[in-house]
């Protein structure tokens, strides 16, 4: 077992990954379809946010802030389109997460399952906080911040991310 440092010391050590155009479109689309389809059968599945996990994965793997932001914005806007709320709520939240995840991916190792769990849980909280702030302060939507529910959702999404990122690792190519 090789010992990998958790924090990178220089940019030269960072491995940047690329994805084919088909994968870049298909995986987010699949995540959106599953996210929209499964809660019809299992309502509690809505606690997961697969589009967010995919956003984090692509942002961290590409390690490009612009790419991370754009991925987050596009996925978020399509997710907004499926709700009845104003377009841009998820867009703004996922843009911020895409930027943050790609910035973090430059600095720390995110191949480790433990790191993935922590990073994803943390970004889930950031995502929910941005969503809450925009919805409440910009749009005046009366939503409640439920600590217990949000923390539980953060941990569950982190756990799913560990499995999902392991599967998605197969599609990435080193540059």
């Amino acid at each position: 077992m090789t010992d990998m440092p958790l924090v990178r010391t220089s940019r030269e050590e960072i491995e940047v990954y690329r994805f084919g155009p088909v994968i870049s479109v298909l995986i987010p689309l699949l995540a959106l379809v599953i996210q929209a389809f499964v809660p019809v059968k299992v309502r509690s599945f809505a606690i997961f946010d697969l589009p967010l996990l995919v956003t984090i994965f692509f942002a961290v793997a590409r390690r490009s802030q612009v790419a991370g932001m754009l991925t987050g914005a596009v996925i978020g806007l399509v997710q907004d389109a499926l709700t009845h709320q104003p377009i841009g709520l998820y867009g703004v939240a996922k843009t911020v997460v895409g930027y943050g995840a790609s910035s973090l991916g430059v600095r720390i190792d995110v191949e480790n399952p433990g790191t993935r769990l922590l990073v994803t849980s943390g970004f889930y909280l950031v995502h929910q906080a941005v969503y809450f702030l925009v919805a409440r302060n910009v749009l005046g939507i009366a939503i409640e911040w439920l600590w217990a529910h949000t923390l539980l959702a953060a941990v569950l999404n982190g756990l799913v991310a560990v499995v999902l990122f392991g599967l998605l690792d197969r599609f990435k190519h080193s540059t």
Partner: protein
Amino acid sequence: MENFFTRYRNAGILVLLLFAQVVGLAVPVKRTSESGSTSLIRFWGVSAVTPLEKALVNTNQGVRNVWRNYFYLRGVRRENRELKEQIERLRIEQVRLSEDAAQARRLQALLGFKEQYIAQTVAAQVIGSSGSDQSHVVYIDKGSNDGIKPDMAVITPDGIVGKVLRVVHSSAQVLLINDPSSGVGAILQSSRLQGILQGTAAGEVMLRYVMSDEKVTTGEQVLTSGGDRIFPKGLPVGTVQQTNPGSDLFLNIRVKPAADLSRVEEVLVVSKVVENTAPASEPSAPLRAADILAERLPSVPPKPPAVPATGTATSPTTATKPGAATNPSNGVTGASNAGMRPSTPAAGPSQARAAAATSGDAAPDNATKKPAAKPSETAPGGGAVGVTSGAGIKPAVVKPAASKPAASGDAEKPKAIDSAGKPAKPAAPSPQPSPGEEVPR
């Protein structure tokens, strides 16, 4: 300067992207179609996702149908037997209910109620949802191509589900009743208290705006009130699950929806609601039941104006009958036949009503002025006779009709008229009803 832009390029792009989206929140670019305007991004997003959802649903259903229809047939005979027994039970119940329904319709017509019923529905399959806890919406596989329009009610046989919010060509977005932005006019079945049904962020359904001093029992049925102009009146909504006094003047009533909103698969979109109205009433004065009945009766030919009255009002078959000459409403009824109106304007419904209101006992006068008691010629003028049948009028018909109970059936029969008059003993004159009385007792 160049270094500044290079250094903060990514942060600048982030700010630009966020700014664009915040502006986009306020100024959505819309696409206008015949079914209303839809945000362009929403249209693209839905168009990208719903075909895949449809394919998933169809595949899932196909596999399930093959399994259920060709392989898994265990217990079908037993189920068939049970269903047959159920049909028998329901047939018996249907007879009873149809009698009740007919009676209710008659009473509604008498009272001038508007009656709403669902005339047309479109069956649709739920193909997806928003996938978010913050937005309780589902997508159905029917859209503007199938005649779906915004604000149509969406129901299941169990109860209401929601309303159509946005429509694209082949799919539509349905806002569920448990969404916080949803609102449905509701009424409690037994106490008849009205409120507004709203969802919560947690996906619960609450009945709001019921005063805290009202008594609401757990388990009471909640129905649509029809006040929202979306859901027809009387559809099941759910049952009262919990009642708590709220912080304000109103009760917090939690309702368990009759339809399982978390697992709704097939729905009906109410595409046409027919509203039956009772015969048009005069806005200036309230309409009497006898007037309504008179307008529904077959008309009789106009009475020759020159026929003299020969004191026949004292005939025992008519003048002594409470349902005939002594009842003001009967006088109006007979006079309000189509054939009578032009020739005797004073005997029209409104005029007769006015006369009845101004003079305490106008009806007997009317009866004596008209040749009502002369059986062959004066039948149209005599209230009860004119009502009894349109043609071949005989005084003898009046007798049995006057003694029949009111609630026995058809509004066009004499017995229905009796309900407007006094169905008491024919021989002895019963107490006179007040002249301006509006509804039968």
